[in-house]
């Protein structure tokens, strides 16, 4: 089936406006979705959590056993088609599993690497024979998968890999030689997806079994966090890989690598939602229990402020990430059965939302880092003690900003992809930016209405104009050389990110209000208001910094005055709003939504 006309383009949220009914929100979960989430949560709480201390101590036989138990419940097969022994569920189902597995701390890495970067390359890009051979055992947890891309000298520069593959003299095998570093699950994985260059040139993916001659692993790494995940070097010394284990086409490994990373980035964001919700729950409970000056510390406004900010940011990430999940799921549903078996078509479907996936990744990981940091702070000295769960969460969180593409790389990808789409005519960004200039010169500030979210919608519309003005001006001024202006690119990525978050929250909140009434959506309205106002201040200062860096003289003065007009608004009382939101969190002792 061809892509439908009204299909949402990746990055399309920057232009025009969307209707609440066009986006997926967590309020749209079906009963089956909720049951899947509950099974996952119960399994994690009752089976995994009691073992986590042992697992953190590298008793990995427990991890392997738990993976089998997870497999029996179907928790590893959501993304694997039924004909290959999986369950073939929608992407929202697998997202919920990921979100709930975040409660398993470092064990979530074992599960996540297995079902995600470990198994998906075969699901998306394997031949029928490869799928038939590997997927049934991966879907049940009988075998465990890992993904080997990074090398000691190639991290972000993945294509600079030094591992080589050479066809054997009789043409029956590839001989792989090289070292793959920091491989999650390496201690016990049975199957590795490995990237190597055929004859040192053609970057390609291979399915490598642990039992093959020439495959071995190094010792466990000593890490800052996620200590319960196995991380080792995969050593390939003329590893004998049957030639039918080449995954995808020779020389097309980057298609697999980059698309798998896109999904990985999205899923990393999803995991951050689960972690942040847990940290809020722990913090609210602790703040109610802990008394100082004969008063529960939850009654102190500064603690309340923290809880409110943790929740508002979590709502922002939950709204934007599940919106992305909906987009990806739609893209998959729109693929015909044949296309679903065609790696290139699947790749295109995922690549469409590369921008959203990058946003989810850097925003999700930064929200989680903020949330766990405040969680430790609320716990005071106890938060620094290893017996408290927030101590582990704080250490575990840090890696999220680094792996699956550093947040810096992901920030660079956002404007880079936007520009490419604009050049290809997929997104009329440049046209809109040009049309905008005249409009902006003539523009008079407006007063938004006073219905709920009116001000937020007004700020959002202006934020999009600010983005077009600042990004358009950067594109005009630097052209191809914009690539070197990394600070401007990062500012652009942050603008895009805030726009995506604000819009996702507004649409989600509107959708909920339309369904259940404004009263039931009160927490959502509050969180949208709080987040939008603060994000808009960031948008203002990001745009200002960029404009000052690239313009001067009259042109700069004109642009700054436009910016001033676009950012003029009557601020809301954030102190009061945050206290109001915190009251709900403290009462319920959890993230309220």
């Amino acid at each position, binding site marked *: 089936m061809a892509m439908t006309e009204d299909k949402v383009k990746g990055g399309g949220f920057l232009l025009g406006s969307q209707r609440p009914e066009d986006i997926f929100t967590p309020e749209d979960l079906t009963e089956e979705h*909720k049951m*899947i989430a509950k099974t996952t949560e119960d399994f994690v709480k009752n089976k995994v959590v009691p073992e986590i201390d042992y697992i953190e101590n590298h008793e990995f036989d427990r991890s392997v056993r738990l993976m089998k138990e997870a497999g029996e419940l*179907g928790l590893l097969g959501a993304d694997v088609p039924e004909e290959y022994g999986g*369950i073939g*569920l929608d992407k929202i189902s697998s997202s919920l599993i990921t979100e709930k597995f975040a409660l398993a701390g470092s064990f979530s890495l074992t599960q996540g690497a297995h079902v995600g970067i470990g198994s998906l390359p075969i699901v998306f890009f394997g031949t029928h024979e490869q799928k038939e051979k590997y997927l049934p055992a991966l879907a049940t947890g009988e075998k465990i998968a890992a993904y080997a891309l990074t090398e000691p000298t190639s991290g972000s520069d993945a294509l600079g890999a030094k591992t080589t593959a050479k066809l054997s003299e009789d043409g029956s095998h590839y001989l792989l030689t090289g070292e793959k570093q920091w491989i999650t699950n390496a201690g016990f994985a049975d199957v590795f997806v490995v990237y190597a260059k055929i004859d040192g040139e053609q970057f390609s993916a291979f399915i490598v079994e642990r039992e093959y001659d020439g495959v071995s692993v190094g010792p466990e790494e000593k890490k800052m966090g996620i200590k319960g995940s196995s991380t080792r070097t995969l050593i390939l010394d003329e590893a004998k890989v049957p030639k039918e284990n080449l995954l995808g086409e020779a020389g097309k490994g980057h298609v697999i690598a980059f698309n798998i990373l896109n999904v990985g980035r999205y899923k990393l964001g999803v995991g951050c939602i689960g972690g942040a919700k847990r940290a809020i729950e722990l913090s609210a409970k602790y703040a109610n229990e802990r008394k100082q000056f004969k008063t529960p510390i939850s009654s102190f406004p500064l603690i309340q402020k923290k809880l409110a900010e943790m929740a508002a940011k979590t709502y922002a990430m939950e709204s934007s990430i599940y919106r992305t999940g909906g987009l990806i799921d739609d893209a998959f549903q729109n693929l015909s059965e044949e296309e679903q078996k065609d790696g290139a078509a699947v790749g295109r479907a995922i690549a469409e939302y590369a921008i959203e996936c990058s946003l989810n990744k850097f925003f999700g990981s930064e929200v989680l880092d903020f949330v766990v940091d405040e969680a430790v702070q609320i716990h005071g000295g106890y938060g620094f003690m290893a017996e408290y769960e927030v101590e582990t969460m704080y250490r575990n969180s840090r890696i999220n900003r680094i792996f699956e593409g550093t947040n810096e790389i992901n920030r660079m990808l956002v404007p880079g992809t936007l520009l490419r789409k604009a050049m290809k005519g997929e997104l009329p960004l440049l046209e809109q930016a040009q049309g905008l200039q005249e409009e902006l010169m003539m523009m008079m500030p407006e007063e938004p209405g006073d219905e709920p979210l009116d001000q937020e919608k007004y700020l959002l519309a202006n934020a999009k104009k600010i983005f077009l003005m600042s990004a358009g001006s950067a594109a005009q001024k630097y052209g191809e050389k914009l690539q070197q202006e990394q600070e401007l690119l990062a500012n652009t990525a942050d603008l895009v990110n805030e726009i995506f978050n604000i819009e996702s929250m507004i649409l989600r909140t509107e959708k909920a209000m339309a369904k259940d009434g404004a009263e039931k959506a009160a927490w959502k309205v509050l969180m949208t208001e709080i987040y939008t106002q603060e994000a808009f201040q960031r948008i203002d200062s990001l745009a200002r910094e960029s404009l000052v860096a690239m313009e001067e003289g009259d042109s700069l003065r004109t642009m700054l005055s436009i910016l001033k007009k676009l950012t003029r608004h009557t601020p809301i009382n954030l102190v009061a709003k945050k206290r109001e939101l915190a009251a709900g969190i403290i009462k319920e002792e959890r993230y309220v939504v």
Partner: protein
Amino acid sequence: MNIYVILKRTFDTEEKIQIENGRVVDDGAEYIINPYDEYAVEEAIQIRDEHGGEVTVVTVGDEEAEKQLRTALAMGADKAVLIEDEEVEDGDTFTTQTLLAAYFKDQEPDIILGGNVAVDGGSGQVGPRLADQLGINHVTSITSIDIQGSTAVIEKDVEGDQMMLEVPLPLLVTAQQGLNEPRYPSLPGIMKAKKKPLETLDLDDLDLDEEDAEPKTVTKERFLPPEKQAGRILDGDEDEQVRELVSLLKNEAKVV
């Protein structure tokens, strides 16, 4: 075998109970299958897997209770019946028992399993009363059951001791903790549950009038247990401490 489970939708045991205007606030609360009824569902599935037959789960409640029935179907039950009680205001155990009895009149159960007690109302009455209405045997608080032909060999919890019984079928039993470890609904089970039959019945379908099921009890007041006070450490030598303790128990706690 015709295996039936009677189950109830209750608050999640992790929910904080709040009372406003004499009612338990249920806004946004999470609900589950009453944990004791969950043992019953698990045991029913195991009995069916061993002896064949069909497991039907039955509940009395509003349409929201469909979710708990679906959960039981996802665990492996075959059919579900929802008896709607919305027409009866403030129903009590008598109401539930009446509706269930009317339903079971037309069934031929070999065994009915339920929970020992529901974690919300906590009466523990529905099971035994239903058995009485149906004129069949019942055993409460069971921790083990083995069906041998037309007899059930049962271990029953008696205040921490075990009682062994042999009881002929048909029979109603209620489950105590320790009977089994309920399974989680697996993902394939959840997807299959969507397609399993779920029948909804109201008073008319059961040939009942509202008056037949009207509650026999009135709830006068609901209140939370008193909040736990901080502990106190008594000063002085042993004699003084004992005297102080006796005085506190007498005058403050009023327990001696």
